[in-house]
């Protein structure tokens, strides 16, 4: 790997995050709304404070959030803070910091989302490769593909609903909702808590995997058919290679490249990618927090989550850029620009 490629990619990573952060900073100023004032007015209306009280509060908060200083100073402070992942306080949940909220909500969903993305991908790719393989009997495809077409095109929450109804409600095999048993307190250091979490995560994972794996499998199946039509597939067989070597080293290995890019994109959307499933299983994770932040004009929380999302996407792209040349020699570290 050439150093300049690496440096360029890192630079690009920062550029993306910086641009996103700047847009985040500029937008509210363009909108011409004052989130603090709005928030206070709501509180005044609901709690019957006096006008003088309210104005004093607004001044205090404005100073607290640094909104009384010149714009360029606010901007520099803001960028510096973003780079340290410090997004300030949540307007609605003051004095909790945005990062604190993101971590406490995010860690409820992140483990199960990560697990389901990797299970979906691995399972979907293998199944798709197998279904697209010209040695797989036709009836297998005829049997498996139609249900997969259906699954891949229904929303995850619909699958979740069916699973909740049959598995949790009728058969009572698994809990209906919640991130962990109601009798437990959140304690990520304890094994029993993890076990409880895992048990609650089975249905959410299953509903995500059924949908996502079908999608990966259908895409991979099409890729396999394409690769099998290539001359190198014909030549691999003409070389008298063993069936499994042809399958893994010549077909699957080549068909895997486009889905891997897809995986990077999927991982980029990791923190909010499961919003609907999460709200269906009452997880109170980042997806619903994001929704709430929009509804309550909690700008700082909103921008914190959005910035983290952008960072995830930029980071996933960066990692993919680093790995891809190792997987596909045609993409070289040297030739690429950007």
């Amino acid at each position, binding site marked *: 790997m050439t150093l300049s490629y690496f440096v360029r990619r890192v630079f690009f990573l920062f550029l993306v995050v910086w641009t996103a952060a700047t847009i985040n900073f500029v937008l509210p100023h363009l909108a011409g709304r004052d989130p603090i004032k709005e928030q206070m007015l709501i509180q005044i209306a609901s709690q019957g404070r006096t006008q003088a009280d309210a104005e004093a509060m607004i001044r205090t908060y404005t100073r607290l959030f640094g909104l009384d200083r010149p714009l360029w100073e606010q901007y520099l402070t803001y960028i510096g803070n973003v780079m340290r992942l410090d997004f300030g306080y949540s307007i609605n949940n003051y004095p909790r910091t945005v990062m604190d909220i993101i971590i406490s909500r995010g860690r409820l969903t992140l483990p199960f989302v990560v697990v389901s993305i990797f299970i979906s991908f691995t399972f979907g790719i293998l199944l798709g490769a197998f279904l697209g393989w*010209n040695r797989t009997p*036709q009836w297998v495809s005829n049997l498996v593909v139609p249900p997969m077409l259906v699954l891949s095109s229904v929303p995850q929450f619909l699958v979740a609903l069916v699973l909740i109804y049959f598995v949790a409600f009728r058969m009572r095999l698994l809990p209906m909702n919640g991130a962990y048993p109601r009798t437990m307190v959140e304690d990520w250091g304890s094994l029993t808590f993890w076990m409880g979490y895992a048990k609650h995560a089975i249905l959410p994972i299953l509903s995500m995997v059924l949908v996502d794996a079908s999608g990966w499998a259908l895409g991979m199946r099409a890729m396999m058919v394409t690769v099998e039509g*290539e*001359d*190198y597939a*014909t*030549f*691999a*067989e*003409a*070389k*008298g*290679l*063993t*069936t499994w*070597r042809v399958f893994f*080293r*010549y077909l699957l*290995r*080549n068909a895997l*490249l486009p889905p891997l890019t897809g995986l990077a994109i999927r991982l980029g959307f990791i923190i909010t990618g499961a919003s609907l499933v999460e709200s269906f299983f009452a997880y109170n994770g980042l997806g619903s927090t994001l929704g709430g932040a929009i509804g309550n004009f909690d700008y700082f929380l909103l921008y914190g989550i959005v910035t983290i999302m952008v960072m995830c996407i930029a980071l996933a792209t960066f990692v993919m850029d680093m790995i891809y040349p190792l*997987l*596909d*020699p*045609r993409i070289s570290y040297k030739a690429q620009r950007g």
Partner: protein
Amino acid sequence: MNQPLLEIKDLKTYFYVKAGTVKAVDGVTLNLDPGVKMGLVGESGSGKTTMALAVMRMIKPPGTIQGKISLNGVDLVTLSNEEMRKARLSQISMIPQGAMNSLNPVARIRNQILDGLEDHGVKLSKSEANDRLAQLLQIVELPTKVADMYPHELSGGMKQRVTVAIAISMGPKLIIADEPTSALDVVIQRQVMETITRLVRELNLSMILIGHDMGLMAQSVERLAVMYAGKLAETGGVKEMFADPLHPYTQKMISSLPVLGRRGVFEGIQGIPPSVINPPPGCLFAARCPKVIAGTCQEISPALREVRPGRWVSCHLYN
């Protein structure tokens, strides 16, 4: 009397598709003696590639293979899948059509050569493998360092040389080269072809060279087989066939070749090749044939007959 190396008898390769039956190869019979190079020519879609794949037993469903294909007296059609797999590369090799893309884009040349050896039970230590690689690459006139390169780092001609190196790596008796140079430019085409013919001679291989370049055939092969719409129109020695083509289709093909010093418009063959999906009865060339015999050619399919020793033709004119 010596036995032919390859004996194909009434080979039929049909694809059963929705639109009907594609009779891509329909009753081909031919023999190939050891050490002989045979050209297989015909218009695009006449079934040349399909026939090559059938001999390799690489036809996939919905395609089927019927007839007899024997190599050194062993009937390939009845071999088990595993026996057939081992026969590929060690008995028959194929250089597929489309030279530019026959190598796995994500693997080093080294592995692509060694894979074939390994799956035929050749066990090599690291240094033996290096020696073998260097030797194979040298035979096809490539530098040793090519072993550690990826296909995209090679030119078209170099890639095709690698393909040739792989094809001969297990010492097969027969090589089927499907338009091995058609994707290359003319100069490179010549050079690669020279390497292939040199190797075939040195290693005393038999070869089926598929193509439609009659000029190239005249230089490279001893025997010629002309295919038309899945059937064999004519076979024979290449000199004889150029001097005295029997089948009207062969006659047309040869007379449409440019000749040095002759000016004018070249004639070409009128009409379009027939579809091989649900072909009609009778001779499939009848519609384009200048010597069609009314009442016979459209109704009865002509059988392939040996009209002279080693000279076979399927045409009602020679009944």
